[in-house]
């Protein structure tokens, strides 16, 4: 069993409440930080830990913190990004609803490090019940003297609030989140300036994911070096993986970075193998935006090395043969899944969620969705497959925010690795509609399903 830095006590009865959380060592990082460390020493430990943003981008957290501008007389803000909505990702909901005080503790310690006196947790609106859990825990933290004026006699003041979103994937993009927190549409801002210079209300702001902020707690408690000793290379510490799809044991797994992908999928400690003992067809390893990989490339790199659950190993081979760790939303597809239909489902998502600011994304995602619908509906042509390829290339890199890229990558990778299946759809014309959206409704393997047409 790997070490659990975040979820060690998650099954302790009553851990949602302050008393039990405190008894299990909770709020020690706040005590240590505000009583024995200068803010910049906390930043230094986070830098040493090698912690990388757990929301998806994987940017080094300590470096992000050190960019924060500190002009005199201007407030600074820490905003927690709890707008978890990357398809396949549900770790933040798990963490916040089961261990609300861990996030609050991380918010206090991190706010102290950044010199923020007001901080916000922006939670997607669909998680309203999680907001209720967090607000209860925040009230307990105030009552126990961990929030408010002069925290634990240190002279440090912090107010912490929870903000609901309104239902928009784009608000997971940090500048769209800030717009939304200011009561506006979630349109991403043009950068620079980055939030570290001009963020919430134009003030210097750090936006971090829930899991990133939670990880600050063990980093401060045990020291950055101890955290960095876990994992492989630049993939330090532990990561929450949201495992879903056709596996025997879907759920959240806290892994030490470096577990082999094959072990993660097949070991009873993690996913427990493929549902109904079918064969593995493909995996989306880091949330719907990252490239889909077929079985051979997800289990081993193109060079034949075992693929590991690290930022570097999953990215090995670039987008030609690799993918990304992303948010850790690990979606497993068995042999019965129709890749074109799955891609249509993903692309419909991006079209629905595009904020509409940039033409390549607004128009391109809709165009791709229509072409994919045409293909899976049996009216596609070989030229349509080429057109899809061209379209995604024209979206990628041509938008204000990464939603355009996120919409392009699944299309590019599906065509790159599964072009033959798209051609199969085109070949069979309207008869393809007889193939169910997934074949196991009829308990058929795909080859038999296609050849029966």
């Amino acid at each position: 069993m790997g070490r659990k830095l975040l979820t060690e006590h998650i099954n302790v009865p009553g851990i949602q409440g302050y008393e039990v959380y405190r008894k299990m060592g909770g709020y020690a990082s706040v005590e240590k930080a505000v009583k024995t460390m200068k803010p910049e020493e906390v930043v230094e430990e986070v830098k040493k830990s090698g912690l990388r943003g757990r929301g998806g981008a994987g940017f080094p957290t300590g470096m992000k913190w050190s960019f924060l501008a500190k002009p005199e007389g201007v407030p600074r803000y820490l905003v927690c990004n709890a707008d978890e909505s990357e398809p396949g990702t549900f770790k933040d909901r798990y963490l916040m609803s089961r261990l609300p005080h861990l996030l609050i503790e991380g918010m206090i310690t991190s706010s102290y490090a950044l010199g923020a006196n007001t901080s916000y947790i922006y939670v997607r609106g669909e998680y309203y019940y999680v907001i209720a859990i967090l607000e209860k825990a925040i009230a307990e933290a105030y009552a126990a003297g961990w929030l408010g004026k002069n925290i634990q006699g240190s002279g440090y003041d912090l107010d912490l609030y929870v903000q609901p979103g309104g239902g928009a994937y784009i608000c997971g993009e940090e500048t769209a989140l800030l717009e939304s927190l200011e009561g506006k549409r979630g349109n991403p801002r043009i950068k620079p300036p980055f939030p570290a210079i001009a963020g919430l209300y134009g003030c210097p702001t750090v936006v971090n994911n829930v899991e990133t902020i939670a990880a600050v707690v063990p980093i401060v408690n045990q020291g950055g070096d101890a955290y960095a000793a876990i994992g492989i290379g630049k993939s330090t510490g532990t990561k929450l993986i949201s495992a879903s799809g056709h596996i025997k044991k879907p759920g959240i797994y806290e892994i030490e970075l470096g577990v082999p992908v094959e072990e993660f999928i097949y070991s009873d400690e993690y996913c427990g193998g493929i549902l109904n003992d079918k064969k593995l067809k493909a995996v989306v390893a880091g949330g719907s935006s990252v490239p889909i990989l077929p079985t051979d490339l997800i289990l081993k790199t193109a060079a034949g090395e075992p693929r590991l659950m690290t930022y570097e190993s999953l990215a090995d081979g670039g987008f030609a043969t690799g993918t990304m760790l992303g948010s850790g939303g690990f979606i497993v597809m068995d042999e019965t899944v129709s890749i074109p239909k799955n891609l249509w489902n993903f692309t419909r998502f991006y079209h629905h969620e595009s904020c509409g600011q940039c033409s390549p994304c607004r128009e391109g995602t809709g165009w791709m969705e229509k072409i994919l619908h045409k293909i899976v509906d049996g009216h596609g042509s070989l030229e349509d497959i080429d057109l899809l390829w061209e379209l995604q290339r024209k979206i990628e890199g041509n938008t204000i925010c990464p939603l355009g890229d996120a919409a392009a990558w699944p299309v590019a990778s599906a065509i790159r690795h599964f072009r033959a299946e798209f051609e199969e759809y085109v070949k069979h014309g309207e008869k393809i509609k007889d193939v169910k959206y997934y074949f196991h409704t009829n308990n058929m393997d795909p080859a038999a399903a296609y050849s029966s047409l």
Partner: protein
Amino acid sequence: MTTEIKFNAETMATVQQIIARYPAGKQKSALLPVLHIAQAEFDGWLSPEVMDYVASILNLQPIEVYEVASFYSMYNLKPVGKCLLEVCRTSSCWLRGAEDVVKHIEKRLGIKEGETTTDGMFTLKTVECLGSCGTAPMLMCGAQFHENLTLEKVDALLDNLRRENKRKTYFDDVVIESY
């Protein structure tokens, strides 16, 4: 139906508490939370009159409210049934049978996606990923997640909701089923 569009004193106090979370002059930040409250208070949707009322409370132009309410998927700009069934249709839920759940509800209730039953009890809506992928397929009704759905569970849920005959909101207490 609610006739007068005005928060009661208790709700107004909650709204004032929300406004106090932000720096002076930044009361526009309260817009999303206050719209959620307004939707829950006024029959589950935001009529132009309700949005104008919210604008007046927050000292905003009505357009600032309309453009926000129309951007986010959780705000209903048309009347909905007492129970809004929000079925997740994305990726993992789709892989685990979300289309079957939608078809089953359509058949049971005699409505199509986006429609409301004639008795005003149910509205069926499909939504994008709700972050419940490990317990797919799922739907949300009010604040409650209904997870690991089977068609039998859907039937039981619809029966229960009809028996309860209560408007569901995002502020309801929930039972945490599983992870």
